[in-house]
């Protein structure tokens, strides 16, 4: 962090909470929904689903359940991803303001922040910010004289990657095992405790105040490509200046990697990178000039923008080791519900450990290839294992020589 978090005074001094005043001055929930829909905002958690559309599935009116919930997915556990943390530790009120807008729109009187347990810094900043917001009347009953009231409850997770999956998150919040739920019903209709619930990512919510305060045109003008707005982009790995930056959607990968992250450390070359966290497919140096927007990355890069936080693989680091490390993570984080994920990932993990120890075999390599299909989309209950197969499948394709080298040399050739 380049600065301490803004307190409520400093935040307000920088147009903070202006959107709420604007809403209080006469925007109905339907008006806000329409604005968000037209803004083109897409969810920043990874899937990129249009936010306004998601909200519009919440049943409204007399016959709908009166209790509704907003849940913030702040369980940021995607490998290589630390963008939400920056937002919460640097600008907690931005999140709260976004939550109030969202909760108001869907008619939720209670909002939960489901926070990754290890984010001790965020706990501190959020607690303080929530207290300040209550004090200033942005939370509690009758916010800014609108008659609308909202309570925010901060919940720190016991720490499972699967809680990033929104229905597993809801189960965990209810005190149950963090297994994903069958859909339908979707959370918008039947979520937390069976009531209509919107689960939004931290970053998504942080987009809302700007859209309301400065308008749709302003927001859409921020994007450089097909998608509206800005996005938090991050780079980790052996670059000169790893970090997170807010940039317009549509800048090129090269711009992010070379201008912001300062390029590779001296003496290292770029071998490949995962564009949006641990569960995206590898991309190669030839893809550097692609734009960072949702469609281009998937259509031309064969991967996904996902969280927008890139993990860089240099030419001196063993790709087999890197994938193995990811597989160890995913195997450990499987919730244990469905067979391919629960029993497939640990097998993959042990094979990687064998490769690491120089015991890799052709047979194991062929099993790895099979497991990519076996754990693929549609075959598992949720997206965890298919996500894990993204770096695995693309890695097996791009780095087959490295795998073979391990088998032939009976050791990891990147170590002396």
């Amino acid at each position, binding site marked *: 962090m380049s600065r301490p978090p803004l307190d409520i005074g400093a935040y307000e001094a920088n147009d903070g909470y202006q959107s709420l005043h604007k809403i209080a001055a006469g925007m109905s929930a339907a008006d806000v929904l329409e604005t968000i829909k037209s803004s083109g905002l897409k969810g920043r958690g990874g899937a990129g689903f249009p936010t306004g559309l998601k909200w519009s599935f919440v049943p409204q009116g007399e016959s709908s359940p009166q209790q509704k919930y907003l849940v913030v997915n702040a369980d940021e556990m995607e490998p290589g991803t630390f963008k939400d943390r920056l937002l919460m530790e640097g600008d907690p009120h931005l999140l709260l303001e976004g939550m109030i807008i969202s909760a108001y729109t869907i008619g939720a009187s209670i909002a939960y922040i489901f926070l990754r347990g290890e984010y001790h810094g965020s706990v501190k900043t959020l607690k303080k910010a929530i207290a300040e917001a209550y004090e200033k009347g942005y939370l509690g009953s009758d916010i800014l004289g609108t008659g609308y009231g909202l309570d925010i409850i901060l919940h720190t997770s016991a720490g499972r990657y699967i809680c990033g999956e929104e229905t597993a998150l809801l189960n965990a919040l209810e005190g149950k095992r963090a297994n994903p*739920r069958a859909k339908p*019903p979707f959370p918008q209709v039947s979520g937390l405790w*069976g009531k209509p619930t919107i689960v939004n990512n931290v970053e998504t919510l942080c987009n809302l105040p700007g859209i309301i305060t400065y308008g749709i045109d302003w927001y859409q003008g921020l994007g450089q490509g097909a998608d509206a707005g800005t996005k938090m982009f991050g780079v980790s790995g052996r670059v000169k200046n790893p970090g997170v930056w807010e940039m317009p959607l549509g800048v090129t990968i090269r711009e992010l990697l070379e201008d912001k992250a300062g390029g590779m450390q001296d003496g290292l070359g770029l071998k490949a990178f995962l564009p949006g966290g641990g569960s995206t497919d590898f991309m190669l140096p030839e893809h550097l000039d692609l734009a960072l927007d949702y469609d281009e990355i998937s259509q031309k890069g064969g991967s996904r923008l996902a969280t927008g936080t890139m993990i860089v693989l240099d030419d001196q680091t063993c790709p087999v080791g890197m994938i193995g490390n990811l597989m160890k993570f995913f*195997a450990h984080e499987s919730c244990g519900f469905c*067979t*391919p994920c*629960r029993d497939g990932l640990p097998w993959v993990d042990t094979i990687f450990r064998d490769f690491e120890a120089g015991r890799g075999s052709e047979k194991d390599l062929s099993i790895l290839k099979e497991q990519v299909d076996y754990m693929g989309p549609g075959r598992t209950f949720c997206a965890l294992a298919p996500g894990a197969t993204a770096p695995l499948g693309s890695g097996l394709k791009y780095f087959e020589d490295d795998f073979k080298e391990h088998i032939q040399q009976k050791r990891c050739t990147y170590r002396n």
Partner: protein
Amino acid sequence: MAKIVVDGNEFEVNPKNNLLQECLSLGLDLPYFCWHPCMGSVGACRQCAVKQYRDENDEKGTIVMACMTPASDGARISIADEQAHDMRERVIESLMISHPHDCPVCEEGGECHLQDMTLMSGHNYRRYDKKKVTHHNQYLGPFINHEMNRCITCYRCVRFYDDYAGGNDLSAQASHHHTYFGRHEEGTLENEFSGNLVEVCPTGVFTDKVFSQAYTRKWDLQTAPSVCTGCSTGCNITPGERYGSLRRIVNRYNSEVNGYFICDRGRFGWEYVNGEERIKTPVQVVGDESKGMSDEEIDELFNDLAKGVVIGIGSPRSSNESNYALRKLVGEANFYPGIANNEHAINQLILELHKDKAFHTPSVREIERADAVIIIGEDITNTAPRIALAVRQSVRNKASELAELNNIPVWQDAAVRELAQQERGPLFILSNAASRLDDVAQQTLIGTCAEQAQFAFAVAEALEGGTPAGLTEQQEKVLLEVVEALRHAKRPLVVSGSSNGSIEMVQAASNIARALSGDQPSHMALVFPEVNTMGLELLVGPEQKLSTALERCSSGEVSGVIVLENDLYRRAPTAAVDNALLQADTVVVLDQMHSATTSKATHVFPVTAFSEQESTYVNYESRAQLSFQVHQTVTDAKPGWKWLTNGDSDINSIIKDCSDEAEGFGSLDGLVPRLSQFVVGLKIPRQSHRYSGRTAMIANRNVHEPKQPEDNESVMAFSMEGMPAMKDASILGSTWAPSWNSNQSISKFQEEVNGELKQGHTGTLLLTEKTETGIPFQPIQVEGGGDSGQLTLSLAFQIFGSEELSARSPSIQKRMTDAYVALAPVDAARLEISHGDAVAINGGPVAVACIREKISEGSCVVHCGAQINPHDLAGAVSLTKTSESLPGKGLSGLIVSDLCEESY
């Protein structure tokens, strides 16, 4: 109906079901694990993968899980598709990664769904060569073994135990491939239906501990279709025998009664059959000596008796045939029910209500469909456990309604549960103490029997539009809820029974049901404490009271008394029984085991246990069911009717006779299959086609091959040969089908999944003729209790201990408590009684004090077990602490939700 295409063949299916269920209904083989016919789909195991095509031009298709895909019109799937087949093989392969190679020593071996599915999927070679995951096993009590290393993580155990049966001490723990199913710490699985884990688990994680003690492979067990004698529900069971001893009981599917599940009393309460306490030969007692009896002496005894007037006392735990034979022997005027007077009066009332047009007695399956239930005074978890399990399902109909509103198929089990969460259909319980269904009840009202009856009368009055008086504020509040729920229900249900001996409760229950009946009869389930209470009551009139029988014996006017399978010390005051048995010159007792009554007998005859005889019983609905003989007795025991007819009859004749002669039994004879209905008169083997060792079974004693015992009476044979049972599900002992060795083979015998058995009949209702509608009973007024310091008494029942025979099985005994007296904390404090103290009731029988939160002040609830004769206790009792020592078990293992042991 919808049309779907499976591998190019068109089928008609029910679009409300999923593809897996419909494929199984069609008789197709498709492997699965986590799906269960009556627990629906959750999509965990991914075993039932099939290829689905968008339309006839789609050649690529996508892999889907059949259990998670609706069988909607036009669906095109392939089971045979190579990718789908490959997927299923991969799933088995990964399930088997850590599964031990212990099939030869695993008790599931030979009836293991995992074995079957492994073969079906084509997986046969383990490529995994890394380290396996291993687990610690837990002690889970006297019924269940735990071997977690065999687990394939299908989640069926917790779905049954927690979600279906309402247990809370078994859970999924840890995650990824370390997922563990067990208790939070070692200890007895508390739920009354824990034994079903043995059948629900697709492999050998949970196995039958009692069976383990004398284990036999499924194919080596001699089996026959049988009926549980544990209570009046009449669950269908399959007992298995080997080497002359009974080995285990498993569930036998009956679509109307027990479906796929039975309770732990039924599953584990059979060990007495092999027990040393069984009476083995007929004996005559002369003075302090007892001596065996020859056939001539037996003939002589019955001839002598026939010369004078003989009293016959029948039994609610004896078959129709034996009770009928006794009635015939002694004459209707001298035949009495071996049932306490007050219970007999209620039972007779229930018979009358059965004939009333206003009521219909629902089957267990119909109970599951109720959408509002009120239970009046009957602790069904302990007196008719399978019905309690059905009531527990009934509250979920609300969830099904919600699911339909939200377009979620009801078979999407997890989705429906998450949708409904705590939303349940209304269940109201009136009880003398906290019950095991309270967790799903909308309201539980605690009160004495009289208070419960009064409240129930008030409900009926309010339903008729009246405004009942004399209720407390809380009662009025609950009353409004009850009336609202019952009025709006489409299928309301009233449950009560005769266990508590309070006729007012049953009267009040019938008033509620009567108020609810309109054009259609309303559903009312009135249960009895014992297996054949209904059958016995049908053979006697209301005026035939046990007390009269005892008085006649005492008066000396009769030459003798024959007591059929009954311990009279559980039925009438000790002094009255003592006197009657002392005054009668000849006391003939026929029973399976020695009891207080046999010790007063002049002649004792051994009778066969339920598994050793063919017999019929009538359940609470008046459903008569035939229970076949499974094995021969190793003693001289005979069915009661055989002793009583002096061997002049056979089972077919006695049933025919009873059917023709006894009023109400007209359709009994139709239960008995005739040889002529089977192919060329072939008998049905009780032994499987894989039964091993027949010729060498007694080779350790005699090298000559024994002749197979003949069964001249039944359509079943003690043999491997004959018409395979799988050809005709009406005499289905043990299910088996090619490729399906486990109990999952049941789908091959059902008309459709969860449907009736092919050719099978579910029993015959005896009471189908209805008379005109009667009139409501007059409500009672509760008298204000005096300040005598005495406590109003009612009885508590325990699934383990209240039923006479099962209570003599060692594994059941491990779950039993001593006799106890439960009382409220305030009364305990006043009487200076602490939890666990020995307490004398009226200065007489001793019981353990059990202090419970949910019991009304001024009342106590006594569990008698075999230690106290409930008929020696008055309606109000005084309790005093005593230093007298107790038999030793105390209250350990008592499963109730409101114990105050912590603070007292």
